[in-house]
């Protein structure tokens, strides 16, 4: 049973690991292969700061909130393990700021210590009159993706540096199941008008005195179009750009100016921070995540595709829940092919 995972960002690699962990002992013939034209540190995931935080509302997508929770709990469980540092996983606390009161988010009980900001705390942020404080997690992909890669290689998963042009190409090679984790470029494999780039740009600085994340929100401009500051293990990420429909992966001087001025206004101490890097990436934005099975038929030839893309600006936040869901879909495919006994109960 040959399974090809297409895409090696956080979604592709975690899905591969999840499937291998759950099924390799049940299916002796299981062969997993990863195909991608971009690997860490050149994936979209690598550019993200790595903060676990969903959008303010799930728009009724309870499923996504559950996947977010599953991811948070999974990561929290790994915090105390020796692997945490290698994974790039650690706790971080911080602020979400608003110019007016807003409803509590669906994730308020998932994170730790969620509460409203006190008036004294709001004094720190002139112009913002309402906000939240909570403790969440950071998962830095420039550590996490290599960690996932090592786990996969240890398990004998093979990696190919290749741009897959079509699902047919995989099936013609003898792949039985293709897992589509191609993120923003999924449309190249199968047109999807719902999938659009949500272009972001970030400035990485040296500001080790910043210990909290600060995320501002402007309800009118929309998510991530308002300044944010996220402290990593080495650098602090400054951002606040979200351009729907913009495919440009080049850094924009105008966006740089916007980010820099807004973030320095938010945290004056940043004026002394040294700029280390600038990066742009395309969030794979979709009204909801596409996580579903598709059977491809061609005469009596039948192959399966499991789609797992469209995670927008919350890929890291939701990745493990989606990987587990994709693994369940895989399990049902195996069951149909009578290659495995009923799926293991969810742990």
């Amino acid at each position, binding site marked *: 049973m040959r399974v090809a995972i297409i895409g090696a960002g956080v979604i592709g690699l975690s899905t591969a690991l999840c499937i291998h962990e759950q099924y390799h002992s049940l299916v002796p013939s299981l062969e997993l292969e990863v195909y991608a034209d971009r690997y860490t540190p050149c994936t979209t995931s690598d550019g993200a700061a790595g903060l676990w935080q969903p959008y303010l509302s799930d728009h009724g997508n309870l499923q996504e909130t559950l996947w977010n929770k599953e991811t948070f709990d999974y990561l929290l469980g790994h915090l105390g393990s020796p692997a945490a540092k290698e994974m790039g996983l650690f706790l971080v606390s911080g602020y979400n700021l608003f110019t007016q009161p807003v409803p509590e988010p669906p994730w308020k009980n998932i994170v*730790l210590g969620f509460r409203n900001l006190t008036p004294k705390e709001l004094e720190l942020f002139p112009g913002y009159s309402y906000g939240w404080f909570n403790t969440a997690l950071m998962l830095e992909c420039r550590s996490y993706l290599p960690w996932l890669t090592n786990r996969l290689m240890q398990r004998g998963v093979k990696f190919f540096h290749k741009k897959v042009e079509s699902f047919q190409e995989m099936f013609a090679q003898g792949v039985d199941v293709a897992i589509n984790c191609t993120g923003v470029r999924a449309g190249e494999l199968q047109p999807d008008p719902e999938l659009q780039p949500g272009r972001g740009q970030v400035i990485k600085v040296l500001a080790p005195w910043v*210990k909290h994340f600060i995320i501002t929100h402007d309800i009118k401009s929309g998510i991530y179009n308002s300044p944010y500051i996220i402290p990593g293990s080495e650098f602090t990420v400054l951002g606040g750009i979200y351009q729907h429909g913009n495919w440009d992966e080049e850094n924009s001087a105008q966006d740089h100016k916007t980010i820099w001025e807004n973030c320095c206004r938010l945290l004056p101490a940043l004026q002394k921070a040294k700029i280390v890097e600038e990066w742009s990436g395309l969030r794979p934005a979709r009204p909801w995540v596409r996580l579903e099975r598709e059977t491809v038929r061609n005469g009596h030839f039948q192959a399966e595709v499991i789609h797992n893309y469209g995670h927008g600006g919350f890929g890291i936040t939701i990745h493990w829940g989606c990987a587990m869901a994709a693994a369940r879909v895989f399990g049902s495919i195996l069951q149909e092919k009578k290659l495995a006994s009923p799926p293991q109960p969810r742990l």
Partner: protein
Amino acid sequence: MAVPKVAVVGAGVIGLSTALCITETCPSCSVTVLSDQFSPNTTSDVAAGMLIPHTYPGTPIHMQKQWFKETFTYLFAISNSAEASEAGIHLVSGWQVFKNTPKEELPFWSDVVLGFRPMSEAELQKFPQHRFGQAFTTLKCDCPPYLLWLEKRLKAAGVRMYTRKVADLWELHSEYNIVVNCAGFGAHQLVGDEKLFPIRGQVLKVHAPWVKNFIRDGDGLTYVYPGIHRVTLGGTREKESWSLSPEPGTTKDIFDRCCSLEPSLWRAQDIKVKVGLRPSRESVRLQREVLSQGGVKLQVVHNYGHGAGGFSVHRGTAKEAAQLVGECIAALRGSSSRAKL
């Protein structure tokens, strides 16, 4: 006495902040700092500089709270300005955890720090050996940056600083009108204060930049305080030990205790060990004294004995000391027949 000449003995956080306050309240004063040690070799440089007050049994609580509040407000403003990184001041959030529920649920300073509240069940799960906890946000003063920043501001205000070991306050009476004694632990020898005793503290300063939250065991013995470049792991409270040499057995013990609070510390790198002697006293000695010898008087203001709480109250006690200096000046001007130049 046209220009009052003030000598501040001691260049730790107390000496430097007191000198700065004096220049603020008495711009016409000439202020000089004298110390045998300057940063990075003061006791202050060893401290993590966390604004979590120590309770002095001999000082009224309302006074301690006032000192803390003034210090917190002062540093809060700096942390929110462009100078924050140079001054080494930054906000940090975290948890104080207790194995047994503390006698007082609300410490006196709970409404001065930010967002103080009991920890939730979910948060406590991270600390399986602890049954109760408090979460809050406070400030940290990284040393040496803070002392260096104070020195810079002092120089800009025209304050001179000299390396000099003062063995006796009387040495200074011919050059200075007022002596401010911020000698910290040095006051033991300098003024023979038997009530001052050392509490030895050993700490580790490690590279673990992924640690963003502080953790403190309510017993005050074990703590993890993330600073700008290093995380301070502590500690010890050894009474009557005068040794400034690191103890390897103690290092291992501190490291083990901190790792049980924060397991990721096992991966910490580049461990540096430091030792400081907290200048401990039942109460901070913050008072005027007029010394007399052979008909000559010397105006003294004492500001020492801050023990484990120096950073937490430094600005508050510095301001009070500066006020006492003002009283000394008034006294000197009042006794015009004894005016000294």
